[in-house]
């Protein structure tokens, strides 16, 4: 994201919600946020890594989260980033996606068609962009694609079928099978997300991916 064109100025960043305020305003899923906060997928090594990069020159000191309380991916992933912020002293600001479409527009996925959340954007103390994480890890997307291919084959659909091209008649069964296949993977995907955030920081900051 080019700093010169982003709508997230330092002043705008400060307008974001604290996590406590985000939770206080949440209409749903407070129990889920609490559950995942209390069951962080972060290892001690993960925490040590993020503490290490936080003190590097140009390391992360501010984190922007685009979120909505109704989103399953958000209540699974945002508490992880809250833990990272708490451990490193980074300032976390949460922006509701649907109240901040201009910020969301900077992080669209699926060739600009999807407003997938969560989005986590990491900045230096002086508000220079470092890196960002979008919705799910690449590993999770790969598993999702593999699950779609496997279910397509099982239902006798043509190779190369995507979620978008599943015939209407097969869609209900397809969706049920897909949910059954990927839901048990959510816990592993949380760890994948942390791995990816480590890699993103390691690459952006030219720092080895170890604590």
């Amino acid at each position, binding site marked *: 994201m080019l700093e010169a064109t982003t709508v997230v100025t330092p002043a705008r960043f400060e307008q974001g919600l604290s996590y406590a305020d985000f939770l206080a305003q949440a209409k749903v899923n407070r129990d889920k946020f609490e559950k995942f906060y209390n069951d962080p997928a972060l290892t001690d090594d993960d925490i040590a890594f993020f503490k290490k990069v936080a003190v590097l020159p140009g390391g992360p000191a501010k984190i922007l989260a685009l979120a909505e309380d*109704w989103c*399953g991916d958000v209540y699974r992933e945002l508490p992880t980033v809250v833990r990272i912020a708490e451990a490193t002293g980074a300032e976390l600001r949460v922006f509701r996606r*649907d109240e901040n479409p201009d910020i969301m527009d900077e992080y669209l996925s699926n060739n600009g068609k999807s407003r997938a959340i969560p989005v986590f954007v990491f900045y230096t103390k002086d508000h220079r962009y470092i890196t960002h994480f979008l919705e799910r890890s690449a590993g999770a997307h790969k598993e999702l694609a593999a699950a779609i291919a496997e279910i397509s084959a099982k239902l006798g659909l043509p190779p190369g079928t995507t979620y978008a091209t599943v015939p209407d008649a097969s869609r209900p069964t397809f969706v049920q099978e897909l949910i059954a296949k990927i839901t048990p993977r959510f816990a592993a995907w949380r760890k994948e997300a942390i791995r990816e955030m480590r890699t993103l920081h390691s690459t952006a900051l030219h720092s080895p991916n170890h604590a």
Partner: protein
Amino acid sequence: MHQNPAKAVPIVYTIRGCDACMKLLRKWDAEGVPYDERRVELSQDVLDEARKYGSLVPIVVWPDGTVQQGFGDSLGCFI
């Protein structure tokens, strides 16, 4: 199988920020399909009710008890 005999219209659990949900509602509106929309993002009780039927909105509960999850070419939103 849960029955929905009180109204002969589908119940649809939605999130207004979910693109798949909005596509379904726009389609039904265009076709004049009546429905009973229940917005899960507004109430924990409605969200809990929706979770009895599935985990991916839009969730449609047809009058005969048939349940469908998701809609159209995008995956929908996990709740």
